[in-house]
């Protein structure tokens, strides 16, 4: 496999010239072009400049909602990301090329930037039968393995590629499987949500590019910066929960006052996401603000922790079938703590807060 494209500076150095020779060359170039010294500095920068990070975005069992969320980003806006920050060499949603030419783009990037490109995956991979998702006559499984091999790192966008999501809900007819379970030996950044918040997606990309490193991840591979708080703890209606003030039916008097949705089945207490902090669509709102309980879309198996409008009675699969990563335990404890608070506060008349 060939290496990544060197910058001009790297090429000059590789041919045995020193940095002093390189600066001299830039100065001569500047003189030829009639530039002042400040202009020469710009040439030096341009020659040394890194090429934009090549990115391959694969689509498997998905609804394209993550791509749609990505283009909703307000800072930075997506045009600036794809024109100035990354080189989005393959994405079936936006790329001009199709068919054979699209495949060429994919393979060219995979070869030319082997070990250097960033792989983004939207969607789960069917493993019950590989033919449940084919692109260009090849299976999703095969395409993922091939693309992952030369990737520097992998970002799993959305709950499908992180956890399998809706198609993995019981009985998971196609054996929808998350990326991390199929790939070994590569850093995988899980960015769950159905879809993830646009600015969270952009934020992960910007973090990689600006600080040249992967953001700190938690035990589930999620960037701590965006997934360390429960929606419940960052919810502006939290004081209503603490005060035992609950909506009992949609559009009732309590709903019109903006009370807490816990009794309507809100999953905020068991959901880790940025909805309460960054909010959605440039801070316009988030589900609870717009009158609907959180359905927990950034958590594994949230589809099977229903029905949505009933108070969650248990943490999914706590106990007999848990895996060793401990997340269920964390979530379980959080839920238990909340339930205790809830029980104590269930009857507002027992509340001693003089403000209420």
């Amino acid at each position, binding site marked *: 496999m060939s290496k990544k494209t060197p910058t001009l500076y790297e090429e000059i150095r590789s041919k045995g010239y020193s940095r002093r020779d390189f600066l001299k060359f830039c100065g001569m170039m500047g003189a030829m072009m009639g530039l002042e010294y400040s202009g020469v500095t710009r040439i030096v920068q341009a020659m040394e400049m890194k090429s934009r990070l090549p990115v391959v975005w694969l689509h498997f069992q998905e*609804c394209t909602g993550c791509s749609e969320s990505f283009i909703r980003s307000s800072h930075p806006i997506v045009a600036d990301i794809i024109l100035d920050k990354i080189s*989005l060499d393959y994405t079936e949603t936006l790329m001009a090329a199709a068919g054979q030419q*699209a495949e060429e783009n994919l393979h060219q990037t995979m070869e030319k930037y082997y070990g250097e490109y960033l792989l983004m995956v939207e969607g789960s991979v069917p493993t019950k039968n590989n033919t449940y*998702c084919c692109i260009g*006559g090849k299976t999703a499984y095969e395409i993922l393995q091939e693309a992952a091999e030369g990737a520097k790192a992998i970002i799993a966008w959305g709950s499908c590629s992180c956890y399998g999501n809706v198609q993995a809900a019981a009985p998971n*007819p196609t054996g929808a499987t998350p990326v991390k*379970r199929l790939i070994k030996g590569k850093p995988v950044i899980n960015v769950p949500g159905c879809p993830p918040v646009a600015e969270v997606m952009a934020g992960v990309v910007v973090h990689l590019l600006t600080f040249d490193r992967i953001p700190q991840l938690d035990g589930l591979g999620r960037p701590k910066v965006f997934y360390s708080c429960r929606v419940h703890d960052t919810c502006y*209606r939290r004081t209503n929960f603490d005060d035992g003030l609950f909506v009992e039916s949609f559009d009732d008097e309590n709903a019109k006052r903006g009370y807490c949705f816990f009794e309507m089945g809100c999953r905020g207490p068991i959901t880790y996401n940025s909805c309460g902090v960054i909010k959605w669509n440039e801070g316009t*709102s988030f589900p609870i603000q717009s009158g609907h309980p959180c359905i927990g879309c950034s958590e594994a198996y949230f589809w099977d922790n*229903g029905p949505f409008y009933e108070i969650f009675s248990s943490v999914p699969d706590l106990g007999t079938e848990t895996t060793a990563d401990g997340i269920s335990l964390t979530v379980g404890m959080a839920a238990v703590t909340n339930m205790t608070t809830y029980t104590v506060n269930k009857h507002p008349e027992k509340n001693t807060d003089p403000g209420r």
Partner: protein
Amino acid sequence: MTARIVVDPITRIEGHLRIEVEIQDGKIVDAYNSGTMVRGIEKILKGRDPRDAWAFTERVCGVCTTVHALASVRTVEDALDIVVPPNAEMIRNLMFAAQYMQDHVVHFYHLHAFDWVDVISALKADPAAAAGLAQSFSNWPRNSPGYFSDLQKRITKFVESGQLGIFQNGYWGHKAYKLPPEVNLIGVAHYLEALEWQKEIVKVHAIFGGKNPHPNYLVGGVPCAINLDEANALNAERFAMVQKLLEDAKTFVEQVYIPDLLAIASFYKNDWGAIGGGLTNYLAYGDLPVNGYQDVSQFKFPRGVILNRNLNEVMEIDGTDPEQIQEYIAHSWYEYTDGDTTGEHPWNGKTNLKYTGPEPPYDQLNVAGKYSWIKTPRWKGHPMEVGPLARVLVGYASGRDEFKEVVDAALKHLDVPVIALFSTLGRTAARGLETKLVAGWAMEIFNQLISNIKNGDTRTFNNSKWDPKTWPDEAKGVGLSEAPRGALAHWIVIKDKVIDNYQLVVPSTWNASPRDPYGQMSACESSLIGTPIADPEKPLEILRTIHSFDPCIACAVHMYDEKGTYVHQLQTF
């Protein structure tokens, strides 16, 4: 001598679509389209609370987000006999309108424009001339020489970087591109502008539904409460924001989208106004109820079927009639218990996944047998085109003045006959024309909502059937809607308070399905026949026609494995 061309993946669509065509003497003589991904959402719905179904089905598609949620709540409400309050209907309509404007603009600029606009040619344009041209057909204030010049410099720098990103390997320079460099520059500039604008209009979804993509819906109404004296509910500030977003959207549609559409169409009308017509039957369920979902006569988009392009007659549709809408699987990777040539009404839809295609990696599908994950729906046995063209034709043929006005004005502007509508370009133009109508209707509906609230009605939810104890032991429902891509319907059977059967027949199932047992092609395949292909290595013409349908394949393929054994997936990591 025929040659087979395969285009897979078809990019700039939602989902995984493969096209195989046979070419003879430079023209397509046979065509096959295949949906190559399946998820099984319907099987997953079985046994669940019907009030949760909207959230599952909404995830069928994130490009046309909201549409399945709307169809789903209507379906459940139909089954349980729930009528939603007027405010809820109008808020749903505003979300519907916002979705149309966002989706159609994104389709035109980000999914379809590169079929007509040559990005590389734009680099040769004279920015001042581009500004003069743009100003001659639009008042959009950003169409200035400085704006086009800066934009051109930015794109030039991008191209010179050698990393072409999403523009890499496009069919640039193909002789089927006909626009002058200046129009190409306008197209590229507005591509970027539309990309920035589309994130604004969806804030309407965030206000009413908390987020976009995938805002929240509710059986019995909408989740957001109205309280003009409360910060945590819909109040004057929230409504003012909705109003501004709708006004800005209407301006964008009228000053950018429509002028660009007409300008581009004027260069392609002679050939592409006569290519890609395909089927001659059109179906629309209609939508945008302004007097409640039960009063179909007051839908802004009327309901009906047109057969054989006869615009003098609009036929009635009944989603509950087992003889009208049926799905076939003769060429789809499923099996029916009664044999593969029978048709099933969705309430009885029973299907098993059964892949019989070639072992991957494969070069060619076995098109004589089964070749797609998409089933084949028929109306009284007829293949139907659905989507913007069908809606506009049904509106036109129903004698609605608003439709006649926009259609006749566009035909006059382009100086083309009515028959030009039945084409690839006609389909693309119809999408723009209905966006213009929707942008106007959105303001009407908004004003209606405000006046209803002013009159003292703040209800957004009907609580009477929320409790499952109030439900009958068995109920059946159908919910009809018009997604941006066309006629969308969900069918439900509820037994013992849970979902017993759930079926979706979606726009791209109609348009992008394989042949039926009688060999009849569906809309996409049929529209490709006769299309000239200048360069088989670069089949730009195929993309033009397929993109004119705006296919959505995740929507189209959603079937389930009836015999699927329960495999509890727990070991995520």
